[in-house]
């Protein structure tokens, strides 16, 4: 296995056209690695007659990535992974919402595309590592295995969306921004100093394959409108919705319920039932979760035996919470020291020991403090 702490390496830098991946590639090149830039074309437009025609944003991003590579002075290519992306990320995203869960497509993309399809192709072509602009750190243990840690700057840490990576994937991952304790403005300043035109480019927060940011519209387009009931905890009908897939556990806005709750307090989505197309709403304290079960666990290193105490992160940009977790029959049984809110099946739970990622799993079911639903 390649030791990514040694150098120089042949590095394939995934360049999205954004400022982070551009600075990451520049730092890798400056560190003496032999870097090649690649932009992943992820959204095909099969209806278009012109060969390879893309949405304008993608072409613009591709151009930005190319210009960054020019300035860094590295070769640059565009690879078409649209078909893999559609199968493994977009279709998965739709199917998860359809099943009443809340997927994290960025995590899925890291797991299936950047550190699978792309990494495998890179390794086969003779590269040693894939470099991205993620904020996270990889360290090497004495026995040569890898540890994934939170970034030095907790505010920008992205280890949550990388928690699915195993030791082999981490061994070939390079995150040059992981040690950075700087604000985004300082990364922009560094890009400016390096002559990278993406320095002033706005951040992208939205899901990359939903260009207009309208996730509900995207899902409606794919799944069709399907009117159903919005009910309270007793089952009484409060209103209607146009598709249960349009809701997320803990959601407050956009419920469009005419009659206020008896206590006058806001109501939240408590449960989504795709089988009878029903969305259940109720008071905020009904969201309190005391335990959960998570499936498909992945471990950075050996799987722990017996119960252990960890800190856990339950969504991107979420805070930490104390948990006890144990692997039982291949599933992760998690209980919380204090009840937490807004836990959505489909999201990942990532377990940490200090800054170190222990492993991750996909939330399947939750146990509520109030057994209302």
């Amino acid at each position, binding site marked *: 296995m390649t030791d990514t702490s040694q150098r120089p390496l042949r590095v394939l830098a995934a360049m999205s056209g954004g400022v982070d991946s551009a600075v990451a590639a520049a730092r890798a090149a400056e560190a003496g690695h032999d870097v*090649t830039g690649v*932009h992943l*074309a992820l959204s095909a437009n099969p209806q278009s*007659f*012109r*060969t*390879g*025609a*893309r949405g304008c944003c*993608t*072409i613009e991003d*591709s151009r930005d990535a*190319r210009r960054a590579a020019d300035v860094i002075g590295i*070769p640059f*290519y*565009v*690879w*078409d*992974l649209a078909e*893999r992306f559609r199968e493994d990320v977009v279709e998965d995203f739709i199917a998860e919402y359809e099943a009443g869960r809340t997927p994290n497509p960025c995590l899925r993309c890291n797991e299936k595309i950047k550190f699978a*399809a792309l990494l*495998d*192709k890179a390794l*086969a*072509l*003779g590269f040693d590592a894939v470099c991205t602009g993620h904020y996270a750190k990889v360290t090497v243990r004495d026995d040569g295995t890898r540890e994934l840690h939170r970034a030095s700057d907790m505010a920008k840490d992205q280890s949550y969306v990388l928690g699915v990576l195993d030791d082999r994937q981490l061994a070939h991952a390079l995150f040059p921004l992981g040690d950075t304790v700087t604000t985004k403005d300082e990364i922009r300043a560094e890009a400016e100093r390096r002559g990278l035109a993406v320095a002033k480019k706005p951040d992208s927060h939205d899901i990359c394959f939903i260009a207009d940011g309208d996730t509900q519209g995207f899902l409606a387009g794919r799944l069709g409108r399907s009117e159903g009931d919005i009910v309270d905890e007793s089952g009484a009908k409060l209103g209607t919705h146009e598709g249960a897939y349009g809701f997320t556990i803990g959601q407050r806005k956009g419920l469009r319920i005419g009659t206020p709750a008896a206590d006058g307090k806001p109501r939240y989505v408590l449960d989504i039932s795709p089988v009878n197309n029903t969305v259940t709403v109720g008071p905020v304290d009904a969201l309190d979760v005391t335990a959960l079960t998570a499936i498909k666990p992945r471990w950075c290193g050996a799987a722990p035996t017996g119960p252990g105490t960890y800190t856990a992160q339950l969504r991107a940009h979420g805070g930490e919470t104390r948990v006890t977790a144990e692997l039982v029959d291949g599933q992760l049984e998690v209980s919380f020291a204090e009840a937490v809110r807004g836990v959505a099946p489909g999201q990942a739970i990532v377990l940490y020991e200090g800054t170190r990622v222990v492993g991750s799993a996909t939330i399947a079911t939750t146990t509520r403090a109030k057994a209302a639903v």
Partner: protein
Amino acid sequence: MAYLDHAATTPMLPEAVEALTAQLSITGNASSLHAAGRRARRTVEEARETLADALGARPSEMVFTSGGTEADNLAVKGLYWSRRDADPARTRVLASPVEHHAVLDAVHWLGEHEGATVEYLPVDSYGRVHPDALREAIARNPDDVALATVMWANNEIGTVFPIRELADAAAEFGVPLHSDAVQAFGQVPVDFAASGLAAMTVSGHKIGGPYGIGALLLGREYSPVPVLHGGGQERHVRSGTLDVPAIASFAVAGRLAAEQREWFAREIGALRDDLVEAVRKAVPDAILGGDPAAEGRLPANAHFTFPGCEGDSLLLLLDAQGIECSTGSACTAGVAQPSHVLLATGTDPDLARGTLRFSLGHTSTEADVEAVAKAIGPAVGRARTAGLS
């Protein structure tokens, strides 16, 4: 470095560079009436005569354009509009499915926006349109055909088309035939008068001239509706101030392309044969695209399909070793897609992803061929490991 992408663009000939740079510092709009204008106009007209001579055309048949794409658009759209204006029944456009996008997309646009019925002519496994196929397509209803367009030689797989026979078939019904001869000029005999074509496209930078200049050769009886309206230059068919330096340089390159064509076909053709042999030796299951017979393909083209490989993997591996070639057709986002040419020849779509085009040119050497011979085997081995992702 081994530059083997001359079909994309070929280095400018020193004589063409000299002609271009000499003209850059001379003032004069070729449409002006004073001495400076007349001097510029004289340069343009001499260039027109030189190119007409090199292409077997009359000077009045040369319409300068900004390049091959514009000439193709002018021919396809302009002839469609003028023929339809003369008789509204003429809305059928016949095209080979292996045309360059400059023709293919223009034809498609006519179908989408101008009420054209686009019919793609059948091709054989070399991508070639048989004259009888064109004859049959027109004969089904000769009165509704606006025009036909079939390239002289294919840019990807190098197949040369029987243009004289195709033009004869079209002429039997009085249908104008346009041909994109961008790749053919300088490599196979191209004689506009002898071809019987109504219109023919050529481009500067494919023959050692500058970028941004080309010409539509246009029979004197044809008046296509202009795509660009303006000052009425170029028979009122193509308005725009004439690019005197580019035209002068294009003419020098065109003259040399015609003069050196036999040398080119012999010498560069022999190098190409060496390259084909070397690739086949290193990768026995490589499939040569296009017509294997020397007389049926461009002398500078070697197109291969490597089963189990992605073309863009191969391109990256060769590029890293200083060998520059193409996967087929480039496009906007720089993404390699299965080539429409290969798909039209009946190639399996997965196979079509593993293609490389080596195109030689006037600066190619034995060292270029040796570099490919050395690199291609290991590159294919490695790309096969990477597979079809």
